[in-house]
């Protein structure tokens, strides 16, 4: 047991950590409100807002009509008044109806009003597959939003990071899309869907301080140091990558990006220059995915250090299939094949 655990640091799963971040912030900042479909009395379909309405009242934690564009538009308006709204979109797959308010409004308010108005909102949304959710409960739309100037995109991979990053996102004065990898809400996932599910208890990052702390936006984490290859990943894939690397006995350096925009380019550059190889892993579809941006950046900045072509491991360019979920998911086999290829010579 680590010092922190002995000192009474609570163990939390990712939902509890996210809940705790909102609780801490609502306590500190009377202007923070949470809103969204089923988030009030019920506490959210994944229970992320459980208890907040009972504690802070209905005007600070409330259910909304089922209109995603309304939820984001209203959050922007509340932000313009001076509140700090944290709207939830029930599944990232349902964020598309909100696109205009996010892309044309939240993202550009500061710029077009020359700072007269800002949009200090944090949009939370569960994303990603691996739960047999079919095509409308599985998508990873981060690449759509990283393409938009003016929105920050954050994706945690552990309970500790989830809480610290969410607090930092809420305190940030710009709009942040906070995507929560729902497959690892209750425990890390090694990509072997046929093995028993694990919970977070045994993972060191499930020690989550009860109070306020921040994990700075724009800073990646080195999950594993290594010399053979740099692997850039985020969300659920951090865990799939880590366990695949262990199983294969590869000395990889694993970087958990944590924030996609703004990106920790220094961490990426330093690592790739050290290892000379770069592999990118994400669950989202391949074409125009965030991996394409990463590959371009790495070749622009590290070209003369590269000893092999950059590898991208991604979901396929199809809608997320229901029954063939595990053939679609970029699991240990796809990652393993790519590792063999990039380390070949």
């Amino acid at each position, binding site marked *: 047991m680590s010092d922190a655990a002995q000192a009474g640091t609570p163990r939390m799963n990712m939902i509890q950590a996210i809940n705790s971040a909102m609780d801490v912030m609502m306590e500190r900042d009377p202007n923070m409100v949470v809103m969204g479909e089923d988030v009030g009395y*019920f506490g959210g379909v994944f229970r992320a807002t459980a208890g907040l309405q009972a504690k802070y009242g209905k*005007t600070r934690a409330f259910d909304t009509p*089922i*209109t995603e564009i309304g939820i984001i538009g209203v959050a922007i308006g509340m932000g313009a008044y001076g509140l700090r709204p944290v709207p939830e979109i029930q599944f990232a*797959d349902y964020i598309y109806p909100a696109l205009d308010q996010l892309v044309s409004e939240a993202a550009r308010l500061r710029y077009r009003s020359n700072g007269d108005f800002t949009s200090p909102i944090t949009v939370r949304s569960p994303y990603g597959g691996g739960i047999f959710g079919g*095509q*409308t409960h599985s998508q990873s739309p981060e690449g759509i939003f990283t393409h938009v100037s003016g929105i920050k995109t954050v994706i945690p991979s552990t309970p500790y990071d989830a809480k610290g990053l969410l607090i930092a996102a809420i305190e940030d004065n710009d709009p942040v899309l906070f995507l929560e990898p729902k497959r690892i809400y209750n425990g890390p996932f090694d990509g072997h869907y046929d093995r028993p599910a694990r919970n977070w208890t045994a993972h060191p990052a499930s020690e989550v301080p009860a109070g306020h702390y921040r994990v700075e936006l724009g800073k990646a984490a080195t999950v594993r140091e290594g010399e053979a290859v740099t692997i850039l990943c985020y969300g659920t894939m951090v865990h799939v990558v880590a366990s695949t690397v262990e199983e294969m006995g590869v000395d990889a350096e694993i970087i958990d990006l944590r924030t996609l925009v703004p990106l920790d380019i220094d961490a990426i550059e330093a690592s790739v220059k050290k290892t000379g190889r770069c592999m990118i892993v994400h669950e989202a579809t391949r074409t125009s995915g965030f991996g394409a941006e990463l590959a371009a950046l790495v070749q622009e900045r590290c070209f003369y250090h590269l000893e092999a072509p950059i590898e991208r491991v991604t979901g396929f360019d199809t809608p997320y299939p229901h*029954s*063939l979920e595990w053939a679609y998911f970029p699991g240990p086999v796809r990652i393993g094949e790519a590792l063999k290829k990039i380390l070949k010579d």
Partner: protein
Amino acid sequence: MDAPRANLPPLSLHVPEPKFRPGDEADFSDVDVPPAGSARRPDTADKADSFHELAYTLIRVLDDAGQAVGPWNPRLDADALRKMLRSMALTRAFDERMFRAQRQGKTSFYMKSTGEEAVSVAATMAMASDDMCFPSYRQQGILLTRGYPLVDMMNQIYSNSADPLQGRQLPIMYSSKDYGFFSISGNLTTQYPQAVGWAMASAAKGDTRIAATWCGDGSTAEGDFHSAMIFATVYKAPVILNVVNNQWAISSFSGFAGAEATTFAARAIGYGIAGLRVDGNDALAVYAATQWAAERARTNQGPTLIEHFTYRTEGHSTSDDPTAYRSAGEPTAWPLGDPIRRLKDHLVAIGEWDEERQAAMDRECAEEVKRAQKEAEKNGILGHGMHQPFETMFEGVFEDIPWHLKEQQQQMIAERKAAGI
């Protein structure tokens, strides 16, 4: 933020709250239930602004004694009534069995329509068999009424090797052009403007077919609902817009869709669309309202919005536990009763049915469902290997498979080999 002005009263924010929460006794005595037969039936050629009161009342045909009364009585013959009853009973039996199949781990997800069977079954019977339906996920009764094979529904639910949708879609997201049933989306209310578009196309082509669509009370909040309304009224689209007001949207009561302020049928008024509010648990009222709206549509009088006032008796889906947010007593306290029991009582009251035949019908429906399930399970259940061939994942993204998907298809086949699958 500036300090509020001291000389003015402070504002306060209203956040709706349902009348009952877990632990409360449910009491619906304040729900206004007008007597059966009390609503007038306008001529289908009347202007939409001449019967606004029908958006605020409840069109009801079946009275407490099981008699069909009033101007909306569709005067169906006994055979049609028995078919209606059987389709509703079959829908319920199907739901029971498939819900259980999910609980047994045979599939990932299921949604029942318990208590709302009349809304899909009776409406379908009032339309022509080639009219086009754009349903939500809770109108399985349409397919069952139109005689779609139970086995194929189950194959879809199991995502198995015989799934007509190739295992691509979440269970119950059926699609069947042959049966006039549009592909169900997981995203709410997208079907609403699509139904209007189909109806506009039918009108533009001088066709005779009309369209109908369904969404829930909660779903009326989506922008697509309002987009559909404006297109429907502007082009007088031959479409029936159904709102299934079962009063709950997962954990959110209908107040979060505006029901504290007005009815869903009243949404029609601002758009100049005909609006009817119907007892959704009265199969004959649903039939009559749909028949009326269909006649209006077929005679170029334009769209009708029908609110079906009903109650979601069970959880939202297999992922939901309603006891966490609503009073456990609500389903039984709900004053409009059960649609199957009410139609059965009517048939008994007119001497065309009895308890024995009811019991026999229930047994028959259960048997039919069981037989179909056995048949479907021969094609596999979810997660047990009998799915579509892996390479089919890349088919149907486009009409033809482009190079990058072909490459990914090859990659996936190589992965299967590498994994020894």
